[in-house]
């Protein structure tokens, strides 16, 4: 469902010509500053990363940059042990987030959208983790997962299992432990975004569906969900980007020293290579470009949708 175009088509240029010198100066300054900042601090480094990915460099002396062509990429794909596990973990992260916290957040938003009492209390409780920094979230889950003093093992022991589980140390478990913490946070974000979308939704559509005899699930799947396409796209982008960019929570729960077995992620491998004792900037940049290309696929989908909406 897209709203009718608000912007009438006005003759091009004529508006621009009506601007006086003061107007032009004002616009140049207030558009120029953020545009210059964007190009200088964001796009220039992004392009430079692309350039550096074809070189080898220790990150210290600029004269030591050597062109190596596609070597870094070849190395990464064939001869860098943590790379494929990292890709696999990023995919697991994406699938997990897309299949559990995201639908759950949408479900909660749908429940909370009805006019019921205490809705703000529920909203706050579920959105609260989103307000906390990932670093704080990391500390909180650390005292839950800690093998000796944590809440989880405490409960398991009290239940008499006698198991001593190292949630964050065991390479088969730690990714899932971190995913639970991340999902705890992601659910609230999706809930708020969807709730905002539902507020702009025309209730008459829902009532029409009810009059036609649709039950709650049918109404949601056939009427509400398809009608909220713009929000769904935003949620899709948010989910993909958060899964690709996942960093802080893993960094903190991994003890703040880069990737740990079982928890390798692309963002962490990049950090491993560009920050630290022996930096391999070319290598890290090539990893960054891989991440960039995957992100661009998501960004592209999103922007194409936005522009299409614009053109209508």
């Amino acid at each position, binding site marked *: 469902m897209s709203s009718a175009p608000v912007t009438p088509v006005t003759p091009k240029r004529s508006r621009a010509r009506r601007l006086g010198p003061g107007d032009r100066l004002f616009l140049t300054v207030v558009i120029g500053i953020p545009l210059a900042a964007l190009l200088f601090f964001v796009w220039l480094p992004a392009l430079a990363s692309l350039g550096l990915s074809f070189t080898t460099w220790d990150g210290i002396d600029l004269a030591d940059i050597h062109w190596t062509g596609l070597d870094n990429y070849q190395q990464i794909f064939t001869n860098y042990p943590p790379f494929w596990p990292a890709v696999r973990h990023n995919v697991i992260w994406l699938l997990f987030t897309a299949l559990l916290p995201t639908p759950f957040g949408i479900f909660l938003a749908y429940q909370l959208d009805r006019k019921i009492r205490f809705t703000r209390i529920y909203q706050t409780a579920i959105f609260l983790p989103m307000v906390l920094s990932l670093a704080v979230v990391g500390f909180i889950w650390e005292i839950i997962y800690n093998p000796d003093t944590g809440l989880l093992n405490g409960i398991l022991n009290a239940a008499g299992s006698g198991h001593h589980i190292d949630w964050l140390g065991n390479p088969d478990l730690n990714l899932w432990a971190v995913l639970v913490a991340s999902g705890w946070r992601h659910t609230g974000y999706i809930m708020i975004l969807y709730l905002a979308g539902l507020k702009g939704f025309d209730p008459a559509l829902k009532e029409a569906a009810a009059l036609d005899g649709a039950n709650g699930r049918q109404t949601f799947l056939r009427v509400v969900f398809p009608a909220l396409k713009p929000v769904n796209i935003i949620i899709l982008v948010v989910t993909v980007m958060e899964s690709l960019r996942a960093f802080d929570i893993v960094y903190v729960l991994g003890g703040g020293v880069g990737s740990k077995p079982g928890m390798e992620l692309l963002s962490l491998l990049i950090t491993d290579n560009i920050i630290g004792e022996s930096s391999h900037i070319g290598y890290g940049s090539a990893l*960054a470009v891989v991440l960039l290309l995957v992100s661009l696929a998501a960004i592209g989908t999103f922007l194409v949708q936005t522009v299409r909406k614009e053109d209508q």
Partner: protein
Amino acid sequence: MTTTATRPASRTREPQTRQTPAGPRRQTGRHLMLAGIALLWLVPLLWAMYTSLRPYSDTAKHGYLSWPHSLSLGNFTDAWQQSGMPHFFWNSVLITVPSVLGTLLFSAAVAFFVTRFDFRWNIVLLMLFTAGNLLPAQVLITPLYRLYLLVPLPQWMSDSLLLYNSAWGIIAIHIAYQCGFCTFVLSNYMKTIPREISEAALVDGAPVWRQFFQIILPLCRPAFAALATLESIWIYNDFFWPLALIETGDKRPITSALANLQGQYFTNPNLIAAGALMTAIPTLLVYFALQRQFISGLTIGSGKG
């Protein structure tokens, strides 16, 4: 507003309720479910709170999963004093406030331009900003680091004389990076403001800056409330830029400073819990203060096209 045919006659309290068939019993069931989920969601936080209220000696003796023998705010006062938290809080304020204000002002200007003036490059401009916000931070970090080492700043701005290791550098990257998201939301919002309003001002001979500051900005208040909430939370909580671009631990904002403290107080989780919870207070205050406008402000950005 139409009411559904199936609504029980007894429920006359809320005439506009959008409820499809549901009796009071169903309502109770929903409350039980939502209350259960809300409580479950609070467990980690409540556990952190409980831990932070217990003296270390108590937990060391009886274990963490035990009834308290004494509760006190001792960990909070200790964390506050020992770790120099007031100083780091102040660093955070110095970074967050200008970053949020700058982001909102500049993105409003870009959104204003993109939606009100018909230039050929408007869509490209909008895409450039939006896509910029979606690039992963790790992709930028190496060149950004080098760039920061090359940009000189005067003494009064930074004692490092560089953009590197100064709060200005962090503010700059926050504004550059976050403008994309805010521009996107605000341009969607401004499209819903009728053009006639600014046409009228134009006819009256008002210069563009007056249209912007006196007509458009006040009309965007709900969107600003939502964005101010989100941006304050994100920027205050950000952890990556200061970690990479600020060398002196003493200059870091509280979230990345906490990472240092973790090493220092690793043996005392109670103290860390107290410190972590205190760190969260400013964002909680912002959220509660702007909560009312928060969702309604977001609506326009994401709900309607």
